[in-house]
């Protein structure tokens, strides 16, 4: 494995791992706070149990998220020193603000986890909300940094030098808003469906109905609302990319040749040699419409870019298809759920309904990973779009493949342990009937 490929793979692995914890860390606190709110309003102890169970989940994911995030802040330098040398001061603004957000999140979490019985209940509740808000803020800030890599701004690039640096302008680059919007929704979709799915599975096994029904409802309402909005935000992103990074759009759509009234390609297998797509369904003019809002508009194809600047088409195209496909399935499930609410049907007692959602548990996260693959692989071969090539940024140290193997082994074992813990946590929750608030205040 050559060093560049090893470094790219290690980066992708670490980010792919971190994003799962990041999503849960951003969204779970809101579920927890909702359930806590319900408890404070209704005094129904089931909500208290749920709040506590979820807050343990938040603590586990927060710590693992913090660890994987710390890794990343070192890895940026360990793997891409040349990139960080120039990019650090420019795109550093969101990272320095993010530090504050993390800190507040950690402090608020300290208050929340250890504060049972110590504070005014509403103050205690509010610290939970702060955990969520600061988590969201940090997510949005890092995405702004990533947006800068896709749409560099806030400096003048003269003869290979970065002059007139303006970190504020770099933070508010052209990509930050669409990416942050889409990512925030994605976090809600992925976490909402995953949590709801787990509780649907436990309901199906007939355990602790009152508890799991409440959990399912809270998680799914968040997830389903976000899922319905997701394609709208995705469409905004696509239109944005059509202008900002036409090569990425072309790779997503496997769109090799510039043309007017371009077809939208669904599925299909791109042939990177012959520059065509086989076995695809084609919808005439739809790509032009999606990218520019006009069925006859011209859509730039990969032929407008020199061959060595083409992103990997197959990976980007498949990742995009997976994301959109899953997005549509999740919209379908959400509409089904809203229908059941509207018609006041109690489908939560129906095995087929529970099965459907249990099966959907991982879909949101798969879509998140696919979406990031689109964004990151679609930017290749650039690390800073049209400014710096990824291969020029990689560390000069040889033997990165060993580092990749070691970190892969670590990540795999961590994943296994977290999974194992979660299973045990879930088992424990469903075995204990109901905890009363006072006996469980030792956590």
């Amino acid at each position, binding site marked *: 494995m050559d060093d560049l490929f090893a470094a790219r793979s290690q980066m992708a692995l670490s980010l792919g791992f971190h994003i799962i914890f990041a999503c849960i860390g951003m969204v779970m606190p809101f579920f927890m706070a909702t359930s806590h709110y319900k408890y404070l309003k209704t005094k129904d102890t089931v909500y208290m149990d749920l709040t506590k169970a979820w807050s*343990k989940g938040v*603590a*586990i994911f927060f*710590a693992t998220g*913090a*660890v*994987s*995030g*710390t*890794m990343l*802040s*070192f890895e940026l*330098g*360990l793997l891409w*020193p*040349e990139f*960080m*040398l*120039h990019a*650090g*001061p420019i795109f*550093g*603004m969101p*990272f*320095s*603000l*993010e*530090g*504050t957000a*993390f*800190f*507040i999140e*950690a*402090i*608020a*979490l*300290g*208050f929340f*986890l*250890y*504060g049972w*019985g*110590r504070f005014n209940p509403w103050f205690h509740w509010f610290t939970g909300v702060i955990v969520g808000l600061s988590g969201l803020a940090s997510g949005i800030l890092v995405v702004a940094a990533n947006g800068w890599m896709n749409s560099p701004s806030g400096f003048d690039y003269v003869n290979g030098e970065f002059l007139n*640096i*303006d*970190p*504020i302008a770099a933070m508010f680059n052209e990509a930050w808003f669409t990416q942050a919007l889409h990512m925030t929704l994605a976090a809600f979709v992925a976490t909402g469906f995953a949590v709801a799915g787990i509780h649907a599975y436990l309901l199906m096994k007939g355990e602790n109905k009152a508890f799991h029904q409440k959990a399912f409802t809270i998680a799914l309402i968040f997830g389903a609302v976000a899922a319905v909005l997701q394609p709208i935000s995705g469409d905004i992103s696509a239109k944005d990319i059509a202008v900002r990074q036409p090569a990425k759009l072309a790779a997503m759509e496997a769109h090799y040749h510039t043309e007017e009234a371009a077809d939208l390609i669904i599925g299909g297998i791109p042939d990177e040699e012959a520059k065509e797509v086989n076995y695809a369904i084609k919808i005439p003019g739809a790509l032009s419409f999606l990218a520019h809002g006009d069925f006859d508009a011209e859509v730039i194809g990969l032929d407008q870019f020199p061959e060595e600047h083409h992103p990997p088409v197959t990976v980007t195209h498949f990742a995009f298809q997976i994301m959109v496909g899953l997005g549509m399935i999740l919209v379908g499930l959400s509409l089904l759920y809203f229908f059941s609410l509207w018609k006041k049907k109690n489908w939560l007692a129906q095995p087929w309904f529970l099965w459907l959602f249990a099966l959907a548990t991982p879909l949101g996260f798969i879509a998140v990973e696919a979406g990031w693959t689109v964004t990151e692989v679609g930017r290749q071969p650039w690390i800073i779009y049209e400014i710096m090539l990824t291969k020029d940024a990689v*560390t*000069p140290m*040889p033997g990165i493949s060993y580092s990749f193997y*070691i970190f892969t082994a*670590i990540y795999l074992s*961590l994943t296994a*342990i977290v999974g194992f*813990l979660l299973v*045990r*946590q879930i*088992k*424990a*929750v469903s075995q204990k009937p109901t905890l009363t608030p006072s006996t469980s205040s030792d956590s």
Partner: protein
Amino acid sequence: MLYVVIIFLCLSILLYVILGGADFGAGILEIVTPSSMRDKFRDTTYKTIGPIWEANHMWLIISIVILFVGFPSIYTMLSVHLHIPLALMLIGIIGRGTAFVFRHYDAYQDEMQKVYNLIFTYSSFITPLFLGLTFGAAVGGEIDPEANSFLGAYIQPWLNLFSIAVGLFTVAICGFLAAVFLVGEARKEEVQRLIIRKAKLFMVLTFVAGGLVFFASIIDEVPLVDLILTEWFTVGVLFLATAAMILLWFKLGRGDRKLDRFLGGFVVSAILLAFGYHYYPDIIIVKSGENLSLFNSAAPEKAISSLAWALMIGSLFILPALYYLLYSFQKPKLVE
């Protein structure tokens, strides 16, 4: 504005070494605690570091962010030439952070606990070892930007006596800090006695390791001893640190918990101050070419000033909240 950033950088490194160090130290102490006492000892650690342990970790992140935003060439030079020890430190950080949570939050208290404990204690040792080693390597003068052999560029900068001695010294300081912070937290008499014994053990170790650092600096020809001996400030501060440690030896656990902690924190701050003063403003001493200092490696003015503003505004939010967190957990619960 550059000075604001430098002050924040120094403060966050100091706080990381003290607060994070005490955290690591708790794990190190566990290694040297006889197994019959371990459970009781662990009980004390949880109670003490539980609520705030996550916040301690932030100081490292802040330091790293300040480095890559404000002093990018220092950050990249360290990450290129000290790639290996930094990666090992990262492995320690992963192991420690996750094992701590795992052993705390696993729904069942069974055999798995042993695995978590093992990971926790050993990574509590590895992380400060490589952290200190990195500090040592940065100023050890073996980093060679012009090296063209693998050994010269990526191994020799850190695999030398001096860096290893600084690493061991850091480990000793962490154990010392943890013991001093834990004294007075123990509810049981025997645990209290154990902790005092450990505190003294680590004071001795700190002295021994400190001596080792000087000894190694002579062998590795790091100009430390002669320079320190000609700087009255450095000598004075190191002297005060020693005096504080001797005072602590007699006072420890005898009454005032606040005094114990203050002295412990003072010893470590003084040591850092002495070395910081000695090297300031250089951060990386290189084998050939110009040393990297906080001035010649600083990012352009605009980047520095926005970083400074972000830090100042951030601390306006963080410090009161952190204070209130620490304050509230000193108080007894409202309702039990």
